[in-house]
């Protein structure tokens, strides 16, 4: 039985690359630590946003509930210029922040995390939302709860 995770990369703020604010083409990628995920899920490039890019891109991935979920998800914001992706900052998100400890499953978690650059310095904030899609058997019992949008 597999469960789906929906991630929406919403926006990022105050991105700095090479001591100057990022001008354009920022992209955010999400990936789980561990062996289950080798590939990252990427949003589209925001060409105009500058150091305050907005993506609002919905990404989906599946995992089978038999295996253990990894404990950490990495969120990486990079800047695409001259063909390659330059890493601007990374955030380390504990997966238990959105897997049901603080709110029921199916709840849309709107989260924000500090981004750290490769020197370990603060470099902006990334905003995204995550949600574990409840399975059909969860939904069968009565109406869908109101707040779980």
């Amino acid at each position, binding site marked *: 039985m597999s469960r789906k995770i929906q991630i929406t990369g919403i926006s990022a703020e105050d991105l700095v690359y090479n001591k100057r604010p990022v001008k354009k083409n920022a992209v955010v990628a999400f990936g789980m630590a561990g062996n289950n995920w080798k590939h990252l899920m990427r949003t589209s490039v925001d060409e*105009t946003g500058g150091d305050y890019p907005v993506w609002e891109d919905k990404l989906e991935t599946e995992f089978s509930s038999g295996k253990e979920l990894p404990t950490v998800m990495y969120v990486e914001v990079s800047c695409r210029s001259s063909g390659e992706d330059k890493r601007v900052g990374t955030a380390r998100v504990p997966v238990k922040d959105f897997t049901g400890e603080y*709110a029921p499953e199916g709840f849309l978690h709107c989260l924000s*995390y*500090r981004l*750290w650059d490769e020197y370990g310095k603060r470099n902006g904030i990334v905003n995204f939302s995550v949600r574990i899609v409840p399975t059909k058997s969860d939904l069968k019992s009565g*109406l869908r709860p109101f707040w779980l949008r």
Partner: protein
Amino acid sequence: MGNCLHGDVKGGKQAIGGVQQRPTSTTAVANNAALNDAVDFFFRSRGQYPLFSQIELTLSASNLIDCDITSKSDPMAVMYLMKKDGKLEEIGRTEVILNSLNPSWIEKITVSFQFEVVQTLVFHVYDVDTRFHNAPVKTLKLKDQDFLGEATCVLSEIMTRPNRTVSLSLTCNNNRHLGTLSVLAEETTASKTVADINFRCVNLDNKDLFSKSDPFLRISRIVESNAAVPICRTEVVDNNLNPIWRPVCLTMQQFGSKDTPLVIECFDFNTSGNHELIGRTEKSVAELERLSLQKEAANFVYPSLSHGRNKVLKGQLIVDRFVEKVQYSFLDYISSGFELNLMVAVDFTASNGDPRTPSSLHYIDPSGRSNSYQQAIMEVGEVIQFYDSDKRFPAWGFGGRTSNGIVSHAFNLNGASYGDEVVGVEGIMAAYASALRNVALAGPTLFSHVVDKAANIASQSLSQNSPKYYVLLIITDGVLTDMAGTVDALVRASDLPLSVLIVGVGNTDFKQMEMLDADNGRRLESSTGRIATRDIVQFVPMKDIHSGQVSVVQALLEELPGQFLSYVRSRNINPLGAPAI
């Protein structure tokens, strides 16, 4: 030419006037209409139906005195209502304009115009000192600023003039002529339409010598008397002749109607405050919508000094995106069935003083006079319980040693082991009085346990089918011991339908609480690197309320509608039964 970098250039470059629309924006909706809705509803429910209409005042001044040595004054205006006893109650403030002796402020001040009462308005203009430039206007202490002048008028006097404008002389004690203040009054319309617009420009003229222009847009509305009232300003984009600004969100209140002509001016930002005009254009909101649909651009013109034709420039204004939406108000949600639920936590730490001594904040006076805690519980409880449907509140104490000898940071105030609920404000008072007899004051002051409990209750309610929003009221006397732990708990709770209202009693320095309130725009950051999704804290010191400067209802309800709206709007949740946007 020495125009030394004056004060808060970064603050001067920020956007003013548009409503924030980011999904995870933590700034409370700066919408005066939301505040007045909630306060208005509260009074109406008690049978107090004042006859009034909401008026919005736009201020501008000219010929102000120069108080700064190397540059010009940085003026800000504050408006007060004179009450019957002669005391002044602050109604609102404008923003700070850098380096100008002829400011036209963008921030409007809202006041209720009551027909049958003489309302005397008093305006004070201040020069804001450089060291305060980075602070939000709300937190500025006026006695630290330079006073530039005062003006008085009666509200009905403004309303009865044909173009609703009045010019007042600014005076000080020695009656010198210190400049003129102009006040324009307009009625507010509770319209729910907002327009979300993405602007950008191409081919702007270069006005700077050694680099490129630093452009920003200023949007003004033309009123009947052909004067232009500024409604908003974008942020400044440095060094760019093809700038792209962040989206601007205008309410119908700001732009009037879709056909009202708006003047859009593009300026080059100068740290001296003398922003140079690059070009201007006149478009109504409907025309901006058409520009975006048909992917056309509008050319800027430069007004000619002589009576010749205006010069048409190469620079163009482009509307990348135009979205018209409906924004529901706080009351729309409440009246459709959203419930507010109150929870209370009382400080039982030893810093309050031994309850048996009269100087203690917890002293129960046999003559019946309420102590600070009882006053806070009653005043706050009465206001918020109005919005609570079942009047059953979980009530806890923290920092006290209960009968089993252990210090608890979230014990049931009613002393029961089975449940933590009490009924009504009287229930809270009774539980508080009995807890004082059974619980010994201890310490330290920690909020994290009660915040976690409240967050737990809020998250459990998510599985139910009726929408509930929770308000945790914490009444405390003092200084937090574990700031980091409290911040962590607040950040964890920031994604839930919960607001934390902290009321400070006593005379301590509440600087820590003001940091939690995040009014300075810095979002709370936890020790794990997670950042608060939204600002869920509001702090009110009781002594501000009792000195008569702010009314209780206004202080408490100030941020709550905004925090509630930031939750529902970011998740696209509409009032029950309302059509989807």
